């Protein structure tokens, strides 16, 4: 039991930190540009596939640097030549543009790398158990993932607190309507923010790729959870996104490792109901409903705190 | 709606509003009698628009009570306050930009004529709605611009439409937030005549910067400085008030 708790907590925090790598960029982009980037998870996927391809050519470590830069450059290009054009047609058009983009990216990835998972392996340098708790070997690569996300997290904090651009971003987070007064270089700041945000998502992709499955549907699977994170945390709230990321990471990881069900707790259902929908609910295990946990959380939040955990403003 | 009934239209009791640690409205008491034209003046940033937002339900007061005809309305959402007969305009034009002038006014007439959320009535077969909308259209002199989308009107026309939407529901307490801001002299004169005519027999609370408008229109004036009402009285009393001269009129005279 204790073993389960320790391992699940580690995995949950890890998943939460990965989510936050993406949610932070998404939140900052939303606060500054006013658009929720529907294609954000697609850049995570691009990061994973670029990482896979580049590590085949030159190895994992260069890929860890090049893949996010490449994805970030694509992101900056999308902002400069796509979003900025659509901006005059309003936020709905911007959201729809990123929606179309997410669709197109998934198709392109499918065309290039196919529909089945690619063989993105953990680099040999990190392919050993970091430590053993009770009887479980905890892989070193996962510790590496955790370390990378924490380093970036700290780096982000420093940038936010100490640099000029960080101050601008902070101002945008608290007073989004003031962004228009940034002056003539507002376009360059937007492009930079979008590029860095998508590059962060790509970092998450490169480090998650070998540990999870690198496949053309990974954006479609993760995207909705990511949007749940930002809504649950409160749209435009960076601390909210952090709390919600960890919360959803932990909830989902713990749920997966639990096998309890109503049948397990109260005994089997009387055979009269065996063929009805009631038996589906009775026999389903917590592990099986893990995928819908984030969405249940979303509904609860909407009922009790419509603005999100730490959200203050309406869209 | 006869004029000078003894009752009170709007009353504020010890109203305060704070944003974080900044208090914008401090302990404001204000009474506006029914049928009175009351002007609220004060330097920029004094909290006049915030006060309007509090009265109309756009924001909730941090402390204090707001009453409409002796019933508490503070804490109610804007649409319920509107249904009780209080309507406001906005400082920055706030109309339905993609809809025509006709449709703009008609939207403001619907609730007052009891249509509620009806989805079984043809909107063109509602004579009362048609007539009231047409009447307002004539009143604000936008007949010729009836089928133009509101977003394409000139600035002065949009301001007139803003007033039209505000009065269309037939509310008898009207709040106008700087209705003549940004207008030329001639346009201001026309707007004042319009306001005078349309608020006949109703209670009016108006925020205004143009002193000729204020002193020409108002029965009583209140002066708001740094979130506090420093004086309240007839135009003559305000003109003679020393505190007001120091805090406000003095700046203008200098």
């Amino acid at each position, binding site marked *: 039991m204790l073993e389960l708790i320790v391992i699940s907590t580690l995995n949950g925090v890890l998943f939460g930190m990965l989510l936050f790598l993406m949610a932070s960029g998404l939140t900052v982009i*939303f606060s500054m540009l006013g658009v*929720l980037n529907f294609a954000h998870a697609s850049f995570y996927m691009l990061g994973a596939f670029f990482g896979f391809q580049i590590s085949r050519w030159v190895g994992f470590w260069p890929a860890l640097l090049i893949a996010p830069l490449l994805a970030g450059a694509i992101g900056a290009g999308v902002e400069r030549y*796509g979003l900025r054009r659509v901006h005059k*047609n309003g936020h*709905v*058009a911007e959201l*729809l*543009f990123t929606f179309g983009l997410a*669709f*197109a990216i998934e*198709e392109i990835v499918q*065309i290039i790398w196919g529909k089945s998972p690619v063989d993105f392996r953990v680099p040999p340098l990190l392919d050993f158990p970091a430590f053993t708790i009770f009887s479980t070997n905890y892989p070193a690569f996962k510790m590496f993932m955790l370390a990378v996300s924490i380093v970036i997290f700290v780096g982000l904090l420093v940038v936010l607190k100490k640099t000029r651009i960080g101050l601008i971003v902070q101002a945008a987070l608290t007073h989004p309507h003031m962004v228009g007064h940034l002056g003539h270089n507002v376009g360059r700041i937007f492009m930079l923010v979008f590029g860095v945000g998508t590059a962060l998502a790509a970092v998450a992709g490169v480090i998650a790729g070998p540990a999870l499955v690198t496949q053309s549907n990974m954006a479609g699977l993760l995207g*909705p959870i990511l*949007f*749940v994170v930002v*809504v649950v945390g409160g*749209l435009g709230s960076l601390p909210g996104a952090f709390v919600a990321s960890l919360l959803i990471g932990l909830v989902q990881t713990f749920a997966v490792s639990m096998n309890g069900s109503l049948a397990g707790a109260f005994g089997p259902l009387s055979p009269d109901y065996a063929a009805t*929908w009631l*038996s*589906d609910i009775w026999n*389903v295990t917590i592990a099986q*409903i893990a995928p819908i946990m984030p*969405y*249940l959380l*979303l*509904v609860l939040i909407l009922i009790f705190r419509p603005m999100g955990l730490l959200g203050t403003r*309406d*869209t | 709606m006869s004029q000078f009934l003894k009752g009170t239209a709007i009353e504020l009791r010890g109203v305060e509003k704070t944003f974080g640690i900044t208090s914008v409205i401090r302990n404001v008491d204000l009474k506006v009698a029914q049928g009175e034209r009351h002007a609220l003046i004060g330097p920029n940033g004094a909290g006049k628009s915030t006060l309007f937002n509090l009265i109309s339900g756009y924001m909730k007061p941090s402390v204090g009570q707001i009453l409409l005809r002796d019933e508490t309305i503070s804490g109610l*959402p*804007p*649409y319920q306050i*509107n*249904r009780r007969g209080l*309507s406001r305009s906005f400082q920055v034009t*706030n*109309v*339905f*930009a*993609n*809809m025509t002038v*006709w*449709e703009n006014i008609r*939207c403001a007439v*619907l609730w007052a004529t009891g249509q*509620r*959320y*009806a*989805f079984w*009535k*043809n*909107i*063109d077969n509602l004579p009362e709605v048609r007539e009231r909308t*047409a*009447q307002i*259209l*004539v009143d604000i002199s936008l007949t010729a611009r009836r*089928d*133009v989308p509101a977003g394409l009107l000139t600035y002065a026309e949009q301001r007139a439409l803003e007033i039209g*939407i505000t009065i269309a*529901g037939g509310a008898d307490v009207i709040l106008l937030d700087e209705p003549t801001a940004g207008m030329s002299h001639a346009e201001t004169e026309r707007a004042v005549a319009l306001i005078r005519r349309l608020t006949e027999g109703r209670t009016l609370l108006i925020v205004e910067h143009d002193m000729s408008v204020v002193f020409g229109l108002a029965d009583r004036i209140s002066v708001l400085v740094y979130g506090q009402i420093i004086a309240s009285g007839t135009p003559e009393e305000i003109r003679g008030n020393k505190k007001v001269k120091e805090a406000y009129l003095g700046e203008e005279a200098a």
Partner: protein
Amino acid sequence: MSDLASSAAPPLPAAADKLKFYGLWLAVIVALLVLPKLFSSGGSLTTFSLIGISIIFALSYNILLGQTGMLSFGHAVYYGLGGFLAIHAINIVAKNKFAIPLPVIPLIGGLTGLVFAALLGWVSTRRSGTAFAMISLGLAELVASSALILRTFFGGEAGVSANRTKVFRLFDWSFGPQIQIYYLVAAWTLLAVLAMYALTRTPLGRMCNAVRDNPERVQFVGYDPHVIRYLAFCFSGFFAGIAGALAAINFEIANSAYLGAVQSGTVLFATYIGGIGFFIGPIVGAIFVTILSLGLSDLTPVWQLYFGLIFIAVVMYAPGGLTGLLMMHRPLLRAGTLTRVLPSYAVAFVPTLAMITGLMLAIETIVHFTVNPGDDSHIKSFGIPFDAASPYIWAMAAMLIFGGFYLSRKTWTRVAQAWDEALSSARDKGVAA
């Protein structure tokens, strides 16, 4: 009504206008009756049925997006649940021999959509804008994932099937042959389109537009925008449920794909490409997208990519959709200045077409090398054979793309100039507002 006021009001439709209006609907009815006589093959009847279903679905979606300004990423939930309930209804009716004929079943689908929209709508319409969009996405994932857990009701991966001919029969219609399904879909489409059109002409319909334009101001004319959004959401769910039920009747099966993200995305594509600003827009979009998806899937394996690219192009260059593009020309047509724009269109058309051809050539070539790298390089796409390995083809694709791009930029500036001139002279004639 006083004379002054009545002269200020817009004229009520004259008898001639009313006649024109009813005549239009009559013409549509006649066209729907005649259509299967002209195209009687089973394939075209199926296509027509799918178009009808898609029209109802897209129009129901536009109650949200076009009329009330709510962008939903999860509209398929109500379509899918309508479909599942319809299938279960058919099975129950057939098993118990209830006297309920098949044409009534879509109503059950509609009521299902309505009930679920009423349940899920109150929390999701509390907020508008981006938050609403994300919430609709989350709820859609919730329902779609739950469908895979509740296997008894949703039938797991395989879905639930039914036999529509086993239902109680009225006038000896078995609803076995596709032609009978066509008439069933056509009748429901006509009814639903009429009802949704009527909805736009009611006080609620107009307040929906007001909420779309300015939800803040709506609160200050006595209306609660949340209630308006909620009611619009319920109506939208009702009509989506009808569409889903008709789809279930057509295919005699309902599966989890009905509720899924792809279905939600497709209706968004169809509605937006058709144009959300006009009532007829989603109808145009439904026809266009249905035919395109059936046609493209025969021509190229990567038709979905083209689909996405068309959508992006519409969002970027024609936010009013196809209908918006056509309607832009109305003032010019009325003023008779349309002829001034047409030559510049003809000039701009050539390089634009060249660029598009180049892009398609490049895509098809790349697809050949990534999807079937080992195969013979002499491929055929869109019916045209070419050698994907030939450097000439590559050079041609590059030339078409870059040359076409360069020239079309120049020519489209000309179009914009010609357009401005034509529009301003139309304004001088007092046509455009």
